[in-house]
């Protein structure tokens, strides 16, 4: 091959390689679910509304359990687990628990820690410890290990309800004219003063079909684990 042809081929190959690398980085490495910024009320208070569903029919992994976060402006449920709060804010959290119960691997995580008063409210009742084994009352947890927060999510408490969970996500309180079983958890915690990203995760082995229950959705950001961004 003559010199210009060789140089031309080299150039094309080089551009292809660079283009390929940029594509891989942009599409696979840097892409991720959106970050929901919590709306700030006076007194550095924010309100965070989430729900956890037994499946995610809006994604290409319909059988995976997942959290959703409500966008504070549009009030729509977004399939993400990334949210942002200001540093030192008082965070009031409401979580709708649509998923059924799963026994925890370590019943220790049935105890509420890290919230204001070390309690949470499930359907209005004050709760400080849930017995995830005897009562099969825990569906998931909302835990931020970096600030010692661990809040078990209550699940529907009867067998009938556990067999009649919501079927389309994001779940709504009514489906086909019938009420959908769910529990409502509310609690408050203080966001840390040091900015940064703090992981949060579920501690219940709800990754069905994965050994020890911690695979799949439990290790995929956007489903059962995510980040709390604390801004300055």
């Amino acid at each position: 091959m003559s010199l210009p042809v060789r140089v031309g081929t080299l150039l094309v190959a080089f551009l292809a390689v660079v283009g390929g690398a940029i594509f891989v980085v942009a599409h696979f490495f840097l892409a991720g679910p959106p970050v929901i910024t919590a709306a700030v009320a006076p007194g550095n208070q924010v309100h965070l509304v989430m729900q956890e569903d037994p499946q995610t029919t809006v994604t290409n992994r319909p059988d995976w359990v997942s959290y959703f976060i409500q966008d504070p402006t549009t009030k729509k449920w977004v399939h993400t687990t990334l949210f942002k709060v200001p540093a030192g804010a008082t965070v009031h959290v409401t979580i709708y628990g649509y998923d059924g119960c799963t026994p925890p691997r370590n019943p220790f995580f049935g105890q509420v820690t890290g919230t204001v008063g070390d309690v949470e409210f499930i359907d209005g009742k004050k709760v400080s410890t849930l017995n995830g084994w005897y009562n099969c009352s825990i569906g998931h947890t909302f835990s931020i290990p970096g600030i010692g927060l661990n809040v078990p999510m209550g699940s529907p408490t009867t067998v009938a309800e556990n067999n009649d969970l919501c079927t389309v996500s994001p779940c709504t309180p009514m489906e086909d004219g019938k009420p959908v079983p769910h529990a409502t958890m509310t609690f408050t915690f203080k966001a840390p003063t040091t900015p940064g990203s703090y992981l949060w995760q579920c501690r219940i082995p709800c990754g069905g079909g994965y050994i020890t229950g911690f695979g799949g959705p439990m290790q995929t950001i956007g489903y059962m684990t995510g980040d709390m961004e604390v801004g300055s």
Partner: protein
Amino acid sequence: MAIETEPGRTGTGGEAGGAAPVRAWWMRPGLIAAIIGAVIGYAIGHWLGNLITHGYPQAATGGGSPDSNDTPIVLGYLFLVIGWLAGMGVFNDLGRLMAGRRVSGEYAESRGLARYFRFTLDHKVVGIQYLVGMIIYFCTAGLLAMAIRTELLSPVHHVFSSAVYVEIVGEHGTMMMMLMTSVILGPFGNYLVPLMIGSKRVAFPRLEALSFWLTPAAFLILLSALLLGGFNFGWTGYAPLSIQDTVGADAYFFAFGLMGISIILAGFNILVTVICYRAPGMRWSRIPMFVWGLLGTAVMMTLAGPILVGGCYMTLTDRTVQTAFFSDQLGGSSYLWQNLFWFFGHPEVYILALPGFGIVMEMLPVFTRKPLFGYRMAAAGIIGVTLLSFFVWQHHLFDSGINPDMRPLFMLTTELISIPTGFIFLVGMGTLWKAKIRLTVPMLFALAFYFNFLIGGVTGVYNSDAPADVTEHGSFFVMAHFHYTIMGGLIFAFMAGCYYWLPKMMGIKLNQTLGKWHFWLMFLGFNSTFLPLFAVGLLGQPRRVFEYARHLQTLNDWVSISSYVLGFSILLFVINFVWSTVVVRERATANPWNSRGLEWLTSSPPPVDNFSRVPVVLSGPYEYGVKDAPPVADLNPPVGVLAAAVSDIDTARAEA
């Protein structure tokens, strides 16, 4: 056996395949057909997997999406490889033999770029294929390493999410450890071993070519893990985490197992070639030290490779059909994988180190103009490392809860292996004594090998000390140690080999000025990157983490910036390589380094059958400074001499 028994087999194109018409290039087996075969194969395998697991809901662990069931993906890969190889023409000769037809000679073309994209029986073509392939694999994995260092610039601000980071770490490590196993044996071993021992061919040319064509498949399957969500357990694949992972893990285990098959074949081929295909007069005391190094490597590849393939296969059955080898809660043991993996893994790292020893000891005599000091000691060192490498693997498991009595035992064997390793240093130092050192680019890399391996080897002694290993294990200290031995050792030797042998292999000289820039930037960048990591590890930073203590940020930033310099130096090498071989193509003389090696007696590049007549070897390759030393071989022995030498083979073999 080096004397050709079937002269027509690897002849130059014309005679053997002369009768049958040669088909158009796009209808013959080759890369295009292989890609088509791979795509068709994947589709078949995927469909078959879905068919088999149809009634089993527990197999559908991916949440019901079409790409998330393990069995179709594994079977898809399997049929992909079969289709890839079929398209490449690997099975054609086998089919012909079974049908009683003549084996075709159409693979032995001597000219043209197209033969590099085919399944070829010429070991020199395979060597060049390996060279280009290895450079591509190395650079891809190197880019991933730069991504890792970019993430570690800050302990709190994250460039990538944690999931992506752990994916990148696993891809980088696996790509390097898996593919760089053959980085010297593949290109330089396959190309040069027959030339160095005076043979016209390798023992098993089809196995050799097969071992190459498995590597692009393994590389692409491993890369495809990124499409499947990656794998989150690093290159060591510890169970039960690897059983728990989503479908990206199947790509890892399949690719690694496939590469395991490739290294078994490559090693076995070199082993038999060296033992059986030496020219008359090529006694064991005369074979080049590079060949000794590859001999040890080949033994380890052939013996350790099967363990890897077996372990990967067992994990794949754990993941697909739910056997319980490694799942503790189902009756298996997480220790089983650790032991299987490291029983392969430790010889693997010596597979990575030994070819480097071979290369540097090959070059020192040439650039010091002196015989190799202590030839037998060097060979003993290589044999010692090869044997001992199978007895040290539990030093990776010191803190894992193994029987405490085992810890002093493996401490002993691991400390002992540093004795034969030390022989290599004495040989180097002795060869430098009163030498006339020429600091050419290959020599610079060879000397840098010694410097880097000194640090790597000594820190290996630190790791072998079980009490000190309590802090060092799983930290950046171990990371720095193995990068010093593998990158500072093997890759520097690879670069030395490139600059030294490219004139022989391609008839083209690489630009020496750019080479010196490449060397200094690489040497300084490499040491600046990895030397501080010993401190980072001792100061408490574990491996594979995206968050670290804030007071370690300065060190980490220094390392990251240095790694960009190191990456730039590799870019310089790639530019030099590509520019010199594709654009400039400056012809090299037949023996630019004035070496006594047998491979330099041929033209550059050598003819298709290496030697028109089997040479008779007259002396060793390191007889510099010896008065009246005969040339290393006689390429055109008179007929009577050859006959006499042939009848002497049995006596020579008895002596050696």
